[in-house]
């Protein structure tokens, strides 16, 4: 975006960033909901899923949005009104800030900052505050318990997530996401540079830890204790309806899409495909499509797990994070560091 934007006034540039950012959040989120939640889950359960709205049910999403917009925006009588109403915005803000760090081409980026991925991980942790606000302000036992479970889970799984990314950072030698993509594009595997060096090969352990942590951060099955419908109705979402529920829903799937894109960027080479020079101008056109393809591949695995496995118990969930994933990711960091110095 830098090339295009250099000649524009600040307000024009900001408007373009806002519009593109909105599209970059909403389009992948919608794609995930239709492709995986509506269709893939249905096929795995031997049914067709939505078929009526539009050809092959493709307009079902618009119908759902229309339905939610018509619903009454109910605030419980005992709720803390202001915080109850602000909570979904905090979650959405975290999601929208997270998209900023992902580049979609050599010149296609929102912000090209030095701290890059570190900034992304920092803003992704803001959503926890939104969830806590929602759970507490609802003034409902189910909501509060859901929020507390969600917080315990998000804190526990944020650590392995950050530590898994550290391996990539050590190998790339930079926090800047664009430079991480470049390092993968121009990297070599034992002197062979034909396919670059996607870090999924050398950081496979980190990739697995990152995917598991993403699954938990999204509070999806098998890590859906916070919204366990058989115990807590829907956890911190229980009291929400209409537009505000829709915002949480969009936030959940947009975050799923962005985390998938982040995994694709950090481990699968981002917008780069082998065969072209990494600085080729063509990537400014096909980069977003390549990134979307890789994102869908990662998201496919995430949702495959979601639809397949039963729910973890709370203690199993915490044990997996603290006793397995964190030590494993620390070992990964040590080995990566040693190998980085040796080679």
């Amino acid at each position, binding site marked *: 975006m830098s090339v295009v934007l*250099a000649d524009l006034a600040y307000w024009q540039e900001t408007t373009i960033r806002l519009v593109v950012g909105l599209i970059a959040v909403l389009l992948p989120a919608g794609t995930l909901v239709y492709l995986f939640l509506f269709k893939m889950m249905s096929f795995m359960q031997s049914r067709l899923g939505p078929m009526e709205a539009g050809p092959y049910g493709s307009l079902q999403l618009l119908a759902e949005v229309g339905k939610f917009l018509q619903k009454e925006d109910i605030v419980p009588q005992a709720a*803390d009104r202001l915080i109850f109403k602000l909570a979904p915005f905090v979650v959405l803000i975290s999601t929208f800030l997270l998209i900023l760090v992902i580049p979609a081409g050599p010149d296609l980026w929102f912000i090209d900052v*030095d701290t890059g991925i*570190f900034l992304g991980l920092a*803003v992704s942790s803001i959503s926890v*505050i939104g969830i*806590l606000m929602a759970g507490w302000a609802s003034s409902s036992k189910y909501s*509060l318990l859901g929020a*507390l479970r969600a917080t315990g889970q998000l*804190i526990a799984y944020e650590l392995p997530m950050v530590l898994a990314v550290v391996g990539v950072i050590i190998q790339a030698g930079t926090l800047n996401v664009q430079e991480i993509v470049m390092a993968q594009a121009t990297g070599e595997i034992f002197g062979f540079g034909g396919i670059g060096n996607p870090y999924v090969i050398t950081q496979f352990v980190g990739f697995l830890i990152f995917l598991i942590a993403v699954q938990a951060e999204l509070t999806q099955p098998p890590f859906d204790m916070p919204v366990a419908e058989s115990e807590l109705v829907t956890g911190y979402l229980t009291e929400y309806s209409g537009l505000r529920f829709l915002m949480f829903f969009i936030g959940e799937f947009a975050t799923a899409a962005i985390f998938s894109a982040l995994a694709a960027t950090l481990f699968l080479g981002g917008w780069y495909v082998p065969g072209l020079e990494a600085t080729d101008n063509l990537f400014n056109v096909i980069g977003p499509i390549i990134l979307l393809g890789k994102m869908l591949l990662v998201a496919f695995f995430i949702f495959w797990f979601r639809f397949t496995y039963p729910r973890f118990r709370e203690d199993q969930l915490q044990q997996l994070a603290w006793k397995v994933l964190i030590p494993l990711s620390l070992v990964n960091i040590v080995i990566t560091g040693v190998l980085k110095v040796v080679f």
Partner: protein
Amino acid sequence: MSVYAEMVGLDPLTSGEVVVAQNIAFGLIAVIMLFSALRMVTTRNVVHAALYLVIVLAGSAAIFILLGAEFVGVTQVLVYIGAIVVLFLFGIMLTRGALGVDEEEKGEQRLMSCLVAGLLAIVTAGALINTFSDAELTRSSPSTTATVGDSIFSQFIIPFEAISVLLLAALIGAIVVARKD
């Protein structure tokens, strides 16, 4: 460097010009921070207080970024907002889930806390004025993460190690407190 700086042909942090936008931003952030800090200590609702603290901490992160200390600003968000305030809120909600004003707090410690806070303010202000009274903010270029890392692991290695040991001691202490036997 920002696109804005490229356009007008000067880097807002290195050039000698006073950048109006930066000053306005600082003023706005400072007003919001002051208001939130006041509300944080005056509100009777302890969850509201924690949420006001989030705004104050976000403001200080914004000021770090205004000063070109990008890494410190982001760390402020990750550590203070993303972890410490979340743990505050978690602890508050776990121990006193009820909504609304906490009437039990009659404020026996109010005098003492006012005293400590006042003393701290005087000492900090005195130290700052004593050190920086006639110093001007040098317009250095934004510090990169690499330079921050270099200075931590060379010039400031001993304070860094000391903090590491302190944190380790705190961790062990937490385990000792939590142990049942």
